[in-house]
């Protein structure tokens, strides 16, 4: 009898499984978003003439579509890090919103790591939906896959994130974690789920080019719902037998994929993107309550006192001469990175801050751009060229005028031809043109913004960096942390120091 039981149980399980799939046809809907980055409000994208997005409108449209047929609402990652609405609350606001919108699953994106592992674990514990990461080792609270059932159809959803996470956040945010090959992870878990599900969906944050490779290399994936490359895939693309979809960015579009499943196969599919526009009366009221709740809190957080300036901080003259605010910001960058020198374009500093209490909003107004800090090795010769470029437009108050730390220089603005820079000292010694120095700057200047070419040359000659054992290893690149904006680094610095009194101290001397 026991032997018969051993034989019969698998047969019975197979029978039960297949009877729900075979001979039955079901129509289901997959709704999806990716790379939301906390953009709750409609906005006018650069170069566009209309307002797009608005998460309450997206939620309203998702609710309408859910009424048509059994549906899943999925997120392909990077829901956080971007807009203040998400950043100022370390994404607590985003998770509350996603709970309200009844998301069914989400895969981690690279930016979900930006606030560190403790915060990430807290956010995962607050989420009323599973958060996936099949190729992430070391973060216990993640799940590699889930199986959701809609109208008798079992859907396996496997989540994978880019292996490049360590290169796009601070090394401490990923210390102790391993990011395995998404392809190998999907292969591994497909082996587990293929006999438990009627269709397999990969929720991916690896980017559209990598999604195409995944579809080509791994047979049996029915749908890839992707993110990371912010691609506006207006109609899902079929690669082999795999459909690939992605819904642009910032909640400006909702991905809609209708599937007809019969005999454990997808026999029909139709997908499209719906652009989200703010149409009065179409918003989801409950989502709007969450949006407004945190909008009110944004104002309160920006008004928080972080310290005291014992002197006026000059952000007016940053395009034409050394200022104490320029010195202060450059000093913060140099201290953080351990660089020999720091250099920032004056045009990146927009307003002055009066003596007295300093609030978060003062720093956000002075540093309004979404710039992050990088540090790169430059030769003395390249530093000289960079400074020469920096002062070349001083008569027009060009934004490229440098504010510096760790070096002093003299220049002659009356020089019409040839180099204007006359003397440079680093740590009190004349610059050595052949020696390499570590220079901290922002990502804008690093890629040649305001015409700075020296950093680009260094990047070009360096190959790239990797993160090994929580440390950045590269021939030229010493530091790159896109997980924190420069303004947030400065806010934290003032919070820690409590009082600041930077001076103009002869770092930049004009020779007349």
């Amino acid at each position, binding site marked *: 009898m026991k032997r018969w039981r051993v034989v019969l149980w698998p047969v019975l399980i197979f029978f039960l499984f297949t009877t729900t799939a075979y001979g039955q046809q079901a129509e289901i809907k997959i709704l999806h978003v990716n*790379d939301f*980055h906390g953009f709750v409000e409609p906005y006018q994208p*650069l*170069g*566009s003439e209309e307002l797009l997005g608005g998460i309450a409108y997206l939620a309203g449209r998702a609710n309408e579509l859910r009424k048509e047929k059994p549906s899943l609402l999925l997120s392909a990652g990077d829901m956080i890090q*971007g807009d203040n609405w998400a950043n100022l609350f370390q994404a607590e606001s985003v998770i509350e919103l996603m709970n309200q919108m009844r998301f069914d699953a989400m895969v981690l994106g*690279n930016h979900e790591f930006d606030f560190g592992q403790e915060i990430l674990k807290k956010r995962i514990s607050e989420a009323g939906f599973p958060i996936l990461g099949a190729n992430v080792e070391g973060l216990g609270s993640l799940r590699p896959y889930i199986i959701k059932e809609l109208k008798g159809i079992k859907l396996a959803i496997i989540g994978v994130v*880019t292996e*490049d996470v360590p*290169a*796009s*956040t601070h090394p401490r945010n990923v210390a102790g974690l391993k990011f395995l090959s998404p392809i190998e992870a999907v292969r591994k878990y497909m082996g587990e789920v293929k006999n438990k599900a009627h269709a397999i969906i990969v929720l991916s944050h690896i*980017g*559209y*080019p*990598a999604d195409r490779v995944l579809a080509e290399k791994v047979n049996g994936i029915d749908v890839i719902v992707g993110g*990371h*490359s*912010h*691609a*506006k*895939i*207006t109609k899902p*693309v079929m690669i082999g037998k795999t459909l690939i979809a*992605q819904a*642009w*960015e*910032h909640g400006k579009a909702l991905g809609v994929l209708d599937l007809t499943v019969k005999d454990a196969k997808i026999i029909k599919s139709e997908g499209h993107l719906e652009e989200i526009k703010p149409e009065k009366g179409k918003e989801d009221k409950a989502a709007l309550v969450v949006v407004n709740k945190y909008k009110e809190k944004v104002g309160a957080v920006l008004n928080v006192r972080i310290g005291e300036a014992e002197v006026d901080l000059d952000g007016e003259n940053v395009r034409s001469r050394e200022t104490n605010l320029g010195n202060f910001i450059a000093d913060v960058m140099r201290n953080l990175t351990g660089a020999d020198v720091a250099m920032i374009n004056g045009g990146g500093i927009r307003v002055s801050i009066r003596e007295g209490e300093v609030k978060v909003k003062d720093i956000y107004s002075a540093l309004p751009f979404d710039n992050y800090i*990088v540090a790169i090795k430059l030769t003395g010769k390249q530093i000289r060229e960079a400074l020469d470029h920096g002062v070349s437009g001083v008569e027009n108050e060009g934004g490229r005028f440098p504010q510096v730390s760790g070096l002093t220089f003299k220049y002659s603005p009356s020089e019409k031809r040839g180099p204007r820079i006359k003397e440079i000292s680093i740590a009190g010694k004349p610059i050595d043109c052949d020696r390499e120095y570590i220079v901290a700057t922002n*990502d*804008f200047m*690093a*890629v*040649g*913004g305001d015409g700075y070419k020296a950093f*680009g040359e260094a*990047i*070009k000659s360096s190959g*790239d*960096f990797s993160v090994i054992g929580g440390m950045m290893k590269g021939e030229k*690149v010493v530091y*790159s942390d*896109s997980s924190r904006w420069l303004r947030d680094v400065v806010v934290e610095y003032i919070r820690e120091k409590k009082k600041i009194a930077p001076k103009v101290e002869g770092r930049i001397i004009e020779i007349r």
Partner: protein
Amino acid sequence: MKVYVNQESVDLLRGMIVKHALMSAGLLKEIEASKKVYDEWENEVGLDGALSEGMKIYLKATLKK
């Protein structure tokens, strides 16, 4: 990381995005003139979109798909 903007190569740090590629190529201002960025399969991509080694992007007047 090397990527291509309108067939011209630009060198960026890993983790940098479409916006950085356009800055490096000196083309970011073109976006204000209503041009948009597309990948090699003619999908529009956002300025914050991730890049990968060898990726090709193009800045063009709006495409009708």
